């Protein structure tokens, strides 16, 4: 879902850069208010974790495979604002150091896979735990649906940006992107659910841990 350079027109680039800059600067303000120096190395290593976790492929239909985006997992475990910061750093490094995703498209990629993905996963997770109770079952179902939705919703935003830039008409690119990612999203949801289940069994204390609780970041 990393948009390369060459696809987006300048108006879309400017809009998504402005939106991402706004989101990041709010996340940084929250971080400076609530994080102590302890959490900076931790967040750096968790950003490296997201990067490494994206190397684990899982099978999808027909011999193809997908990999985790990770925004859902980060948002549920660490809270949405921490997730925005971590995902933004992952995407900046992928663009500048690994050339995965363009530099002009960086604003759009941060907006889709950082801000939109983190918040859609987080809100759906919260809604699920509110409806089903803050039990193991509620958390895992919330994690599955939240992670699935984060992939689908952010792919729809990517489709809208591509269509606004005139790459393909919206009527084609939106159903195509959303359809493919509704399938890939099942993998993301299942992997996220299984990962959450393991964290819940092994280190339940890390879940929305002390610092990065919802109110904290």
């Amino acid at each position, binding site marked *: 879902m990393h948009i390369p350079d060459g696809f987006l027109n300048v108006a879309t680039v400017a809009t998504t850069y402005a939106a991402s800059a706004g989101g990041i600067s709010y996340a940084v303000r929250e971080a400076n208010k609530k994080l102590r*120096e302890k959490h900076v*190395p931790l*967040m*750096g290593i968790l950003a*490296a*974790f997201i*990067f490494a976790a994206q190397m684990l*492929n899982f099978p999808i239909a027909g011999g193809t495979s997908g990999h985790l985006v990770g925004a859902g997992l980060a948002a549920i475990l660490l809270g949405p604002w921490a997730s925005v910061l971590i995902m933004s750093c992952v995407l900046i490094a992928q663009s500048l*150091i690994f050339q995965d995703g363009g530099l002009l498209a960086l604003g759009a990629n941060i907006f889709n896979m950082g801000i939109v993905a983190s918040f859609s996963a987080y809100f759906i997770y919260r809604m699920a735990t509110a409806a089903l109770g803050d039990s193991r079952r509620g958390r895992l179902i919330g994690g599955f649906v939240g992670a699935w939705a984060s992939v689908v919703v952010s792919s729809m935003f990517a489709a809208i940006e591509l269509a606004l830039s005139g790459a393909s008409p919206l009527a084609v690119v939106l159903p195509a992107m959303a359809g493919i990612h509704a399938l890939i999203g099942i993998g993301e949801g299942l992997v996220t659910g299984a990962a959450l289940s*393991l964290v819940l069994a092994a280190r339940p204390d890390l879940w929305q841990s002390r610092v990065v609780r919802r109110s904290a970041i």
Partner: protein
Amino acid sequence: MKHSFLDKYSDRDSLVHRLDPRTKLVAVFLFILAVALTSPAMWPGFAVYFVIIAALVLLSHVPVRYVLKRSLVIIPFVVLIAVFIPFFKEGEVAGSYNIWLWQVSVTHNGLQVFWNVLAKAWLSILALVTLTATTKITDLLRGLEQLRLPRVMVMILSFMYRYIFVLTDEVMRMKQARDSRNFGSGRRLWQIKTVGSMTGTLFIRSYERGERVYAAMLARGYDGQTRTPDGPGFRAADMVFGLGFGAAVVLTCIFSFLYQVI
């Protein structure tokens, strides 16, 4: 640990290496912006952009093979997104095919946009590869900080870069352990559950490593600041390069636009 370090040519010495990271970051951004602004039909414009970036690569003493290889790795991902374009552009039909139940037609306009997107993406990637290959990551991050990227993000990025390779090794070891336990023959749902458990384990290990790293840093006097020796500063050479490169890129963009209007 076997990784090809991406800035492995960054300790060479050349005109491009000696530039301030800020100069290079702004120049690359300007270049990609100019490429994006150039109209699809302007092939001469793209040729000039290519000459500019090729000259930069030659000046930088980075092996041309390396730059080409790294830039071509990305192209399949670009094609994956761009592949729909030729089919869904309106205009004169270049060819029409019957694939099973669908009648598919490719238009001239669509093909032009397709090649254009590919050319733009490749030029942009070439510029980014040149930037990464000639700049140490620590210098790049300092450049980003001087360009007003928030401090906390620069620090997260620098920790991230230090631990990417450690955690990548961790993932490789886990994969090896998994594959030697007959992973491939299981059912799909079971495979996905395994990958999920690996991700969860990796999260816990990363988190605990983060806590250990902080404790170790604290014991060595960490106070929330990182100090790095000064890298190259903004000098006359940067001014000359910036003006020359900027003028070449901006003029190409303007001439392409004028040529099209006239």
